[in-house]
């Protein structure tokens, strides 16, 4: 008779993986990323907020980073998982450089790598809780793709994550066109970001706009957008109906 209780994992269906950490729900999160193709490459925008539930806890989080020579990655969702993804990509780029063969991973390849990582994690019920936007230019070819936490991935002329899908994409569908100038692209992104600022609870008024072209990546200094509140309907909304909202 064996009186020693054997150490079983809590959920025996999981086998040896049951002790590993898993992100069940996110803690510090970033909100929408919006990106579009323009004449010379890709423009991407993201605010600098790291929310902790409903608290706007961190207001200088950089959610867009250059990857290698040809790509730019923007992320929404859990910031710690984004930081882990940056480590994976660091290693990927390092190994790519170590080949020293004159070749370098382009945005399409990086996007594919990310897709595999995200999808495989999803299959193990241990997702990286992010929605990613990957843009870049290589040999004159512009590329813009997205991957979600469950591995859904596609490329398009304009993409967005989170609330951006609901609020920004309709604007982009109307106003995007081939060969946008840099100025027009920036204005279009700012239009989207302003709507997100009005209507997304987790948005913060401090953003960066990044561009990637054949020449490389530049990420702007952080800045804030003007917002518009001086409508007569806003000044006294309950005038005709006291007690309403």
């Amino acid at each position: 008779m064996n009186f020693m209780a054997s150490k079983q994992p809590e959920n025996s269906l999981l086998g040896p993986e049951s002790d590993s950490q898993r992100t069940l729900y996110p803690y510090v999160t970033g909100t929408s990323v919006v990106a579009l193709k323009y004449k010379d490459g890709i423009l991407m925008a993201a605010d600098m907020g790291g929310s902790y539930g409903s608290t706007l806890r961190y207001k200088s989080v950089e959610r867009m980073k250059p990857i290698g020579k040809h790509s730019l990655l923007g992320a929404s969702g859990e910031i710690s998982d984004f930081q882990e993804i940056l480590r994976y990509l660091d290693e990927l780029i390092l190994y790519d450089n170590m080949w020293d063969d004159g070749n370098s991973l382009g945005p399409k390849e990086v996007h594919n790598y990310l897709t595999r990582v995200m999808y495989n994690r999803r299959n193990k019920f241990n997702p990286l809780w992010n929605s990613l936007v990957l843009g870049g230019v290589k040999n004159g070819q512009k590329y813009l793709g997205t991957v979600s936490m469950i591995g859904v991935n596609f490329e398009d002329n304009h993409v967005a994550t989170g609330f951006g899908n609901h609020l920004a994409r309709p604007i982009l569908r109307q106003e995007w066109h081939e060969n946008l100038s840099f100025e027009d692209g920036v204005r279009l992104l700012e239009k989207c970001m302003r709507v997100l600022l009005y209507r997304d609870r987790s948005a913060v008024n401090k953003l960066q706009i990044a561009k990637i072209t054949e020449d490389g990546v530049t990420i702007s200094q952080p800045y804030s957008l003007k917002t518009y509140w001086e409508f007569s309907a806003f000044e006294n909304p309950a005038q005709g109906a006291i007690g309403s909202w």
Partner: protein
Amino acid sequence: MDLEMNLNASHSMGTTIIGVTYNGGVVLGADSRTSTGMYVANRASDKITQLTDNVYVCRSGSAADSQIVSDYVRYFLHQHTIQLGQSATSKVAANLIRLLSYNNKNMLETGLIVGGWDKYEGGKIYAIPLGGTLIEQPFAIGGSGSSYLYGFFDQAWKEGMTKDEAEQFVVKAVSLAIARDGASGGVVRTVIINSEGVTRNFYPSDKLQLWHEELEPQNSLLDLLNSSSPEPMNI
């Protein structure tokens, strides 16, 4: 992360609401954000609602519940005023709110701050949180944004402010809460009630002071790029 907007979530005024007394009356303040889940359903709501000529209430929590409670109380107060032959007092208004909140405590989700002026007691503030407790205080704060203001009020509140000091204090407080509470935002509305009457004010976000890590708003990045020296962008 909420991948879907829950458009069927109840309309909740995340909110920051404040009521303070000063040496001649009261100042009520609130933000203007009403959310449905994570979506901002109304960015310019009016959460400071009239009950009588001299008594107003700040509403927080469920938009529907707070509206219906204030509508009932306005109705009862109207009848009470007719019967009494003079203006209702803020104490009566607060107690009517309390009766509804207390007797329906299992069904309602609304926290209210009643503020008003009457000739018997001057300016008074009454807080009626969830559950229907009535508590008279020199100042009251409520709503999700108020969590960020307890320290501020503990340190900065003082008795006997002037009307302008009190209003600036309220605007500063709501603005600080808006900076940190995702459920609060938009414009700051204030209502000042004293023996002379009622004054409504409106402070849009861009007119408020900037706090830590907040930057001066710009029309566009293009303005920044055109105005500054070479190499403004950096990797």
